[in-house]
């Protein structure tokens, strides 16, 4: 091995302090720490890490430049393959992607690829460096629907190739889940999300907010009346699911999406903003994904005592390991093998508790996952003032139902092939709207693939 130093730890806000604020939990590396950590990378000839990065970042190459202290060059390498490195360095589930395959991980700890990526992206932003190389306009225009990671990645690549790109976004701020879902303390909005989206704008991409495709305009009107030659749909999977149990419409039962949208997009935690949010004293969060962790940690910061209720065991928690670890440090209580069967209300129709049933893990099903089964007569009540449902999301049917010829599957996802081509010629799609709720970097990978396919399609026309 090149050197035997252990993985350089990253500095974080003290859990006791950070539960009282919305500032970022992780401080990231400074220059010395980054160079030291970079020196651990073996610069593999055939790097395993790259294969598991959905956008194939040239990992050993950029890390080598960090080791040498050539941060600008490192940034140039990063921005070739990713338009949102400061975002991905923060929120990618690295343990199951790039870092999960790093050769150093076999015997010890993998290189901190994500933290290095974040360092380089932050450094170049702070220095005001932008990479705006693009081909001259080729006279063709493409519309991108949705400004989440899929749309941003697709728009970036198309702009670089010379297309005139306009992104249409339904909400008032671009960014998709990065803006309305993932909290400030994990992903700062002003410094990181806005800044990376401004980079995309400086490539010449136009972003029009407040345009709800399917209502304000349609795919057909964009193609027929507004002259777009191709369309990319990256509208995500934003529709919240509920359990369908009694009491779910009581006051103070909210979806994680509503709770997080109020806090993130609408900045309810900030007294300067006018958005109301209701947190009560005790909050129960139902679910175990990243979304549940974000809702739980947000509620804790707004002053509540938070319990996460999850029907499997800790091992099956779908959330990133780092998030669960942080949530625990912050004092959030986990009740595993527990499933709600009814929300209890008081005489005024407000939540007062949650009746749950104990679960056990049964035999593995076809997918190999052991599914939870209720233990008869094991009902018990949890007292709580607020219930946040975090049971997953599905794509909004609005675009599919207003676009003739666009097929969906039984989960309301758009049907698209490997390259992103939908059942409608000239219309491509990618990200959560095709796969169902997944990850930022998978959405970006799909956006990039579709950009390539759109280029081939338009060249052949």
């Amino acid at each position, binding site marked *: 091995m090149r050197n035997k130093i252990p993985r350089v730890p990253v500095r974080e806000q003290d859990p006791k302090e950070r539960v009282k604020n919305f500032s970022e939990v992780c401080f990231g590396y400074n220059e010395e720490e980054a160079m030291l950590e970079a020196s651990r990378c073996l610069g593999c000839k055939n790097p395993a890490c790259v294969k598991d990065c959905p956008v194939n970042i040239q990992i050993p190459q950029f890390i080598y430049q960090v080791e040498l202290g050539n941060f600008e060059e490192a940034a140039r390498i990063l921005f070739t393959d990713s338009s949102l490195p400061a975002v991905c360095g923060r929120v990618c589930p690295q343990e199951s992607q790039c870092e999960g395959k790093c050769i150093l991980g076999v015997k010890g700890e993998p290189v901190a690829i994500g933290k290095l990526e974040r360092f380089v992206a932050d450094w170049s932003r702070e220095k005001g460096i932008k990479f705006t190389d693009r081909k001259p306009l080729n006279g063709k225009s493409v519309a991108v629907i949705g400004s989440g990671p899929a749309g941003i990645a697709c728009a970036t690549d198309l702009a670089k190739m010379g297309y005139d790109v306009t992104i249409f976004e339904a909400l008032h701020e671009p960014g998709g889940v990065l803006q309305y879902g993932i909290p400030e303390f994990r992903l700062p909005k002003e410094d990181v999300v806005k800044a990376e989206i401004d980079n995309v704008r400086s490539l010449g991409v136009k972003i029009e907010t407040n345009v709800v495709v399917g209502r304000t305009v349609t795919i057909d009107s964009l193609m027929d009346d507004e002259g777009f030659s191709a369309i990319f749909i990256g509208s995500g999977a934003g529709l919240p699911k509920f359990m369908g149990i009694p009491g779910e419409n009581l006051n103070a039962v909210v979806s994680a999406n509503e709770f997080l949208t109020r806090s993130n997009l609408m900045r309810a935690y900030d007294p300067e903003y006018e958005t109301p949010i*209701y947190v009560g004293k005790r909050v129960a969060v139902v679910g175990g994904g990243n979304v549940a962790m974000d809702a739980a940690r947000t509620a804790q910061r707004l002053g509540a005592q938070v319990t996460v209720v999850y029907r499997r065991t800790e091992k099956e928690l779908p959330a990133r390991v780092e998030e669960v670890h942080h949530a625990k440090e912050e004092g959030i209580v986990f009740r595993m093998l527990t499933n709600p069967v009814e929300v209890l209300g008081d005489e005024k129709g407000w939540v007062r508790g949650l009746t749950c049933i104990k679960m056990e893990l049964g035999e593995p099903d076809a997918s190999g996952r052991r599914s939870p089964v209720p233990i008869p007569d094991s009902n018990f009540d949890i007292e709580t003032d607020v219930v946040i449902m975090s049971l997953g999301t599905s794509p*909004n049917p609005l675009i599919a139902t207003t676009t003739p010829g666009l097929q969906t599957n039984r989960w309301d996802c758009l049907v698209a092939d490997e390259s992103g081509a939908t059942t409608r010629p000239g219309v491509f799609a990618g990200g959560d709207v095709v796969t169902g709720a997944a990850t930022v970097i998978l959405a970006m990978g799909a956006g990039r693939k579709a950009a390539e396919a759109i280029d081939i399609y338009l060249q052949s026309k």
Partner: protein
Amino acid sequence: MYKIVRKKFLTPLIALMDVDAPRMARSAKPGQFLIVRVHDKGERIPLTVCDFDSEKGTVTIVTQVVGASSRRICNMDEGDSFVDFAGPLGQPSEFIHMSREELSAKRFIFIAGGLGTAPVYPQVKFLHSMGAKVDVIIGAKSKDMVIFEQEMRSICDNLYICTDDGSYGKKGLVTEMLKELLDRGERYDQAVAIGPMIMMKFVTLTAKPYNLPLIVSLNTLMVDGTGMCGACRVSVGSKTKFACVDGPEFDAYLVDFEEAMRRQGMYKNIEQQADHKCKIGIERQQ
């Protein structure tokens, strides 16, 4: 930015505005709504599309002061701009899918409570243009709260006005007026009631014994207005619906009004903390 090109007060607390929004003006239909934000720290406020002019590219909104955000809207002037103006949202009224032949054979009655007169207006206008027969009941607290009287008069067959204090039209509630019409043998194919939740509930109870088909437009709480949050959920026929995408109009007889009214008040105490300063640790007052 979306510029206000015309503004006038209809009453001291209700303002009408034409707003420059060409894309929306082209696609808006009766029954739909939109979402505005006044400034970059403001709430997303749902308002009904009260009229639209695709040639001028403007959309008309009518806002009544009930709290901080609606007051801000009403305080804006011609030449000012909204930072956000998104829509049209929701399903258009069902009758827009009917043909002229079908509609001209039908008779409608609209029951408008207070500000509800504004969203009723584009629907009546549309039906009138399609040759349908339309009667309208407008109810208000007093004479100076009656809006859209002249506009409505020119597009409906019979206009009935009632006020709580009897200062104009008939003294009494819209439900009494409706009952009187039905009792004296007036027959309608479809009724539509728009106004405060409590009024829509009582219109529903009044119309039920007459088997009068009735549609109501639910003004639930909303955040995004696109189906993403579920703040707007209502029970309709014991199924949960999202008012912003499945509605806002529903079959009145299937709506759980008690639940809808309770849910609408969810942030009442927080909103009433005049300028909503600190939201951390706010307690629920009952």
